[in-house]
């Protein structure tokens, strides 16, 4: 059990907690970014541990995906704002049960 692993797990859990806890969609996005970053760091750590640079390459892909994803996410967010004038997830409960 190493410190980096613990750090990353805490960071990841914090991100997850953010998703569970916050109602503000924007902050939820940020929480997700936090989770991804925790994974990034973990990858880098393992990459160094194994002396294998493919881990770092993988981080590239994660970053690329994260960027692409967040673009879409923000586009959706804008749409929501246009509809509701707010970005609170609580107001989005039309679909249930």
């Amino acid at each position, binding site marked *: 059990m190493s410190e980096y*692993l613990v750090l*990353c797990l805490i960071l*990841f859990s914090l*991100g*997850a907690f953010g*998703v569970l806890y916050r109602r503000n*969609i924007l902050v*939820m*996005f940020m929480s*997700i970014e936090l*989770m*991804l970053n*925790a*994974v990034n760091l*973990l*990858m880098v*750590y*393992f990459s160094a*541990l*194994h002396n*294998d640079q*493919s*881990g770092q*390459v*993988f981080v590239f*892909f*994660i970053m690329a*995906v994260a960027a*692409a*994803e967040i673009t*879409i*996410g923000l*586009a*959706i*967010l804008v*749409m*929501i704002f246009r*509809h*509701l004038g707010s970005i609170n*997830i609580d107001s*989005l409960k*039309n*679909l*249930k049960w």
Partner: protein
Amino acid sequence: MNAIILISILGIFTMMSEFIGLKKFIYPIILLSLVGILGYNICSFWNTPEVHYGMLLHDNYSVAFGSLLITITLLWFLLSRESYSAGEFNQGDHYALILFSTVGGLLLVSFTNMSTLFLGVEILSIPLYILAGSRKKDIRSVEASIKYFILGSFATGIMLLGIALIYGATGTFDLAAIKIAASQQSLFYVGITLLSISFAFKISAVPFHFWVPDVYGGAPTFITAFMSTFVKVAAFGAFYHLLDSIFTQVPSYLSYTLIGLSALTILIGNLAASYQNNVKRLLAFSGVSQAGYMLMVFPMLSVGSKSSLFVYLAGYAVANLIAIYVVHSIEKLKDEATVENFGGLAKSNPFLAFVMTLALISLAGIPPAAGFFGKFYLFTEVIKGGNIYLVLIAILGSLISVYYYFKTIIAMYSEPENTSSAVRYEFGFAKIILVIMSVLVVLIGLFPDILLQIGKQI
């Protein structure tokens, strides 16, 4: 590999079609190309397995699942044609996104490296986040989109953590290497568990299924059709492929997890579906429960379980496409596809009622439809694997499922005409496709041997 490239090119071409003035011709071009690619793909079934760039495996499994995926896309194109006639949606964008999503699906059934897995999942999902929200004027569509997005990203995070932990344990992303390096250490099994959980999300196993009814319910129905069939096939193909590549035998901790998930999924999925009044949501929940059945074979990893999964998926996809198409038609006629709105369908639109009945019978797993054989084969494999109690749970689930499927059938056949909007539905050439698909459902049910032979080869 070639199919992936060809479809990517097709997607790009579609995207560009508006600029280069081919908008009118793009639809036939897509159809023809897909048919060509499908044919090409099927022809490569007997080729010797090979690995492209150390990233993509070309073997019977990938070809079979790939062909199934391309077929679903093709059927989707055939059925969704008229959804774009109203001009509400930009067909070029949609088609391109669907094609890109197809690429993602194809990646998922042939990856040999975690990076392709990851990218495949994302390429599959991102277009769908967009498509789910494509009915921009409808808040429900947008809501579906954001829910799908947030939960999907969350699952991606979990998947990535899983991959990272596996990487930590083995030092590689390559499946073959992981298989060799696989060990009992906790990094590895937490990693593989988390990875499995992210797949459980994609295949909508309980308790990771919450996005399914909301997203399926909110998204435009023809997109739901794609999501509920294509994504499910791709995710199952990928999950099985993953386990099959990493393990020769599923370790006990994982197999217990899978069995538990499967039982829970069957029960909760069916129970939740039983009270739905909106057929679209009902089908969403039923999709959840179907996932439960398929999960039953995962702990076995035998040739039989693989082929049974394939047969089941094939039958499920066709039947589900039909069912959702009918739901779509009802929505067009009467705004909302509640069970009441199905009332008297047998009188006003006997053909629609008939194909719907067939599809539901197939989903419920009653002979002679494809779904029955799929379920039968699945159960056979599970009992062979020794999990007879799981089959009993599945039987209980099936019974509940019959309850809600037949609720719809009963409405169609016995309720009086819901008079105000007794419109006859205009099909266009979708009717021919529906006929073909119905025949397919029955044929798979009665003569499953061809499919079985394929299944045994993969």
